[in-house]
Structures are given as C-alpha cells and as structure tokens.
C-alpha cells in the first residue's frame, strides 16, 4: 500500500466516524468568536474515534516530500538540499476534536541556484504531493525561502493560487513531469 492510499484509507475512516453526528456538531455546535453570546447550543464531541489516529508531525511531512526527484536530475530534493526538515512548519489547531479545524503546513524551499527556472515546477510537485497525501483538513503552503531566489514573490504567488494549481494538474505535459518527479515516493 502506498502512502497516498494509506492516507486515503485513513481519511475514509475519519469521514465515517464523523458521519452524521459530525456534521450536526459542526453546524450548530461550534461557538464563534464574533457571536459568542448568541450561540445557545452546547457543543458535544462525538468524534472520540479520532484519538486513535496518530497525529502527523513535521518529520512525516518531510518524509513525504524528501524523495521527490529533481525534474532534471535523478537526485532527490533531500539530497539537493531543496527541502530541509527545519523548513517544514506545521501548525495544528488548538482543538483537534473540532471537525472544522484546519492544520496549516508551510514548506520553505531552497532552490539550488537563485535563478533556478524549475523552482515553480518543484514547488508545484511539493504542493501536489502533500495535498494528495495529507487529509483534506491540511492546508498546504509552499514558498521559496527568503533571499534564495530572484523571482521568489512571483513563484510564491503562483504556488498559492489554487486555480492555477488546479489547471496545471489538467495539463498532460506538466503531469508527465510531475509523475516522473513523484516516482521515487511511490516505490
């Protein structure tokens, strides 16, 4: 079973456990900061199954992206120093039992040269890898580490644009490149 499949299976279990009750909790139960005094229903947690799911940590996220290979060389992003464990940042929600709570992942990439023309493709690969492998409650942000690339702002803006990422994934040429990059992850 690949990581992707495993995570999908995990998500499946989660969805089931949060099924009908989950949605009700999430709709009426969560007091909101702006309206606290007006929310009357009490919040009861029925999502106890979630505690059996191992929380994901930075190391695990790093392990998901470290083997991705450079689009031009048969070398991993780890060996090229493009991804580093200390540049993987994870912010978990304060209340993990809240089904609407989101985890935020920020990965900062260090391109090999400041004019690396493939920075966008590498960044896209990292974002896509994480979005496919992590549960849907994880929001992934991939950025170029400060002062490591001449067009960092442009690359960051592209990688943050959901619509561009979605369109890229429907581009067969680009998908071919991404598949090749991801191959080591699935071996």
């Amino acid at each position, binding site marked *: 079973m690949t990581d992707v499949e495993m995570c999908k299976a995990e998500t499946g279990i989660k969805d089931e456990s949060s099924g009908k009750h989950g949605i009700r909790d999430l709709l009426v139960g969560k007091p909101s900061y702006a309206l606290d005094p007006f929310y009357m229903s009490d919040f009861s947690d029925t999502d106890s199954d979630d505690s059996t799911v191992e929380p994901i940590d930075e190391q695990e996220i790093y392990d998901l992206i470290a083997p991705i290979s450079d689009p031009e060389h048969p070398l991993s992003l780890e060996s090229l120093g493009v991804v580093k464990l200390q540049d993987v940042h994870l912010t978990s929600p304060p209340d993990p039992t809240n089904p609407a709570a*989101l985890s935020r992942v920020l990965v900062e990439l260090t391109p090999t040269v400041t004019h690396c023309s493939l920075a966008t493709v590498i960044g896209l690969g990292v974002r896509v890898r994480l979005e496919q492998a992590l549960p849907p409650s994880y929001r992934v942000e991939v950025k170029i580490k400060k002062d490591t690339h001449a067009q960092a702002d442009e690359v960051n803006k592209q990688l943050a644009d959901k619509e561009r990422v979605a369109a890229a994934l429907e581009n067969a040429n680009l998908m071919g490149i991404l598949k090749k990059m991801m191959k080591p992850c699935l071996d």
Partner: protein
Amino acid sequence: MTTPVAVQILPIAEFKPISSSRAWVSIPNPNGLPLIATATSDKTVRVYSLKNFTLHSTLEGGHSRSVRSVAWKPAVKHNGILCVATGSFDATMGIWRRREEIGELEEPEQIQAETTGDGYVIEMEITSAGQAKSHIRINNDDGDEDNEDNEDWEFAIVLEGHDSEVKNVAYSPSGQWLASCSRDKSIWIWEEIGDEGDDEFETIAVLQEHTADVKCVCWRKDDGNGEVLASASYDDTIRFWKGDDEGEWSSIATLEGHEGTVWSLDWEPEVSQKKFAPKKSPDDYRPQMPRLISSSADLSVRVWSIAPTPPPPNKPSYFNSGIPSTMRPGPTEETWTCTATLPKAHDLPIYSIGWSKKSGRVASTAGDGKVVLYEEQTKGRTAVGGEIEREWAIIGVLEGAHGPYEINHVSWCTRFDAGKREEGEEMLITTGDDGVVRAWSIDEIPIPEIEDEVSTGMNGISIS
C-alpha cells in the same frame, strides 16, 4: 443606534447526487426558474432542481478539461429555451441549449409539503373539491418528480479565441453581451448576432490591459449610460470597461488597493442603495451610482465607491489649450476609491462574495471553509441633518460548512422547496472542493430586549 442582529446559518439540504470531484460555482437561474447550474472539474455542468435538490439534467461532452464557470442567458422573452454559457480550462467556451417545458417547472403548486424533520414529509394534497387530504411518506427517495429528461442539452456552439484557461463567463443583464476572461490576461466581449439559435457570435472587443490572469467579470446594470463590466485580476487590480457610442470598448477606471489576487466581485443591489438613501419620500428615490464589493487573497473584502468628479477645467492652460481635439474623446475616466473594508473574518483567500438583492446583506466564503454574513448598519449621524454614518458588522459565521474542505463559491438564491417559510425567501448556496453543493437558510437569532442603560455593556451579556 446600531441594532444588534445575529443570524444562524442552518442547513436545508445537500444537492444529490454530488459530484465526485471539485465543484467550482453554482449559479441560480436568473429568470425565476427553480434551477441552479453547478460547474465541476469532471468537465460537466450539473443542473439541479431547487424544488427538491436533485439532479435535473447534465451538460456533458463539450469540454476536455474542468468547467470553471457557467452563466445563464437572461431571458429576454420566454421562448421555452434554456441557454447556458460555459467557460473551461480547455480554453474554450460553450453555448448550450435545452428545450424546456416551462410549464412543468412553473406548474402551480398542487402539492404543499412540510418537512417535519427526521425525513418525514407531510403532504397536503389539495383535491379538486378544495378539501385538503394529508398523508405521511418517508422522504428518502431520490426525488423522482421533475427529474425525467425529455430532451438533453445540446452543445450548440464552441467559442474559441482565448489562449489559455477561461476563468469566468458572464452575460450582461440585458442579455446583449457575453463577457469572458482568461489566464491569458484578456477579456473578450461577444455578441450573439442574428436570431437566437442561429449560433453566430461576433467578438466585439478584446481587452488586454490587465497584466495577469483575469479571475472574474461582473456586469453592472444599465443605469441609462449603458452596461459596464468590472473585472478582477491576479494583478491585484479591478478595472471597469465600457463601450462608447461607436461600440469601442475601453478601460474607464482602475481600482487599486488590494494586496493580493482579486477573486470575486459583486455590484450593490438597489435594496442596499435605497436603505441609506436620504429619506425624503419613498417616491423621491433616485438611484445613485451603485458601489462594488471585491474579495481577495489578501483576506479582505472591500467596498468601492465612485469619487465625485472634479469640475471640468474651463480655463485654457498650458497643457489644455482649449482647442477642440479632432480626435474622438474617449469615455470619461472615473475615479473609484475604497470607502470601506469589511471586518476581517477569514484567514485564507476569499474566493467568493455575494451581495443579496433582497436583504442587502453580503456573504463571503473562503479557503478556510467559513461562510460569513455581513450587514451594513447605521451608526448615527455626524451632525444634525448630516450624512448617516454606516458601518459593516459581521452578523453570522459558520465554520466548516463543507467539513474540512475549501469553499469555492457562495450565492444568494430564492427558495422553491416545499420547506420555504414564505414566498421569495432567500437562502445561501455554497459550492466546495468536496464536490458538494449545499443550501442554507438564514435564521435570525432572537435577541432579548436590551434597555438603553445596559446597551453599552453588550459584551457582558450572556444567555442562560
């Protein structure tokens, strides 16, 4: 004084069956038909019935990639033909038609059903004798009424011209023009020539001033000076476009201020304009220039208003000799400024906003999965007889409206289902990455009467 208002956003239904992949937008039919069209990344558009939240028909086979946007053609005359435009990541647009027995959709309500919860529905059958019979049935079927396709959607014509993904398509309110915008930085304005059904379209204008992807186009109703198109872009700006007397289209305003991609736009509805119009007599209302709202990846929702135009220079100057130019004057440039920023409620890009034509409230939704409702309220007057000061307040927040998934679109929509509380009741429709389209009702939360003396201490009030 500001009247405290709070609302709860409560689920009505989920449209069935759901799409297995990301759904981008859901657009209610503007001609009063109980239909809503959802564009999805599975290359189709699903048309759902607003009467029973089930699939009415599907537009498929026209696009080779995601259908990113969909627009209903406003009906100039009811000719029994539904017409829809689609925009796709495959860089093309489609025009689709379907012959519809309008009577079937608009048939007088012979059955009034009332939901009692738990899936039971009490149906009141009005018999010809005028007597009401009621019976209970379990509401777990997939809604077989109004669901039979007698004819399919016909992919009438493909419109080609854009170099890359078409992001948004929009018919002008008069139905005369169709605007499209793309990753290729351009906006195209199309006009259908000849009779409806001739399938002949002409490109009226190709507007290329934006320096990056154009994400959204939104038409302003003709206020006597023609229809105006607003566009929002990845270049962080908003632009307005207008055609002159000779049919030449050009940019008439650039709105700068957002610090990220502008994702969504909406024009102020009349109800909101009237709400704050100086009260002389109700008949004295003269429409002013509507305002525009915009939402952005910079996490803000902004309100823009036209700035009073400076008087034209009447004295010749070094730069303006006063000698009439032989060149045709361009359309007047307008100056628009950001006059309000709505209270911050989202922490991920705000993909969609909608300004209700019925209540004047604004709804926003974002990558953070929240749906937020805002209302513009009066704050008081700066001086006796002075202008009424207003402020925007958040009146309702719903977290995780699509579970952990991002919400791509929100729109206001009239209720047609049996559970509606009154004719014309409004609901919200959200469209998410989970492929799900959901309908939500807006319920006012009763607020205990507050005496004037304690109203300053609002924050301390708790409800037991």
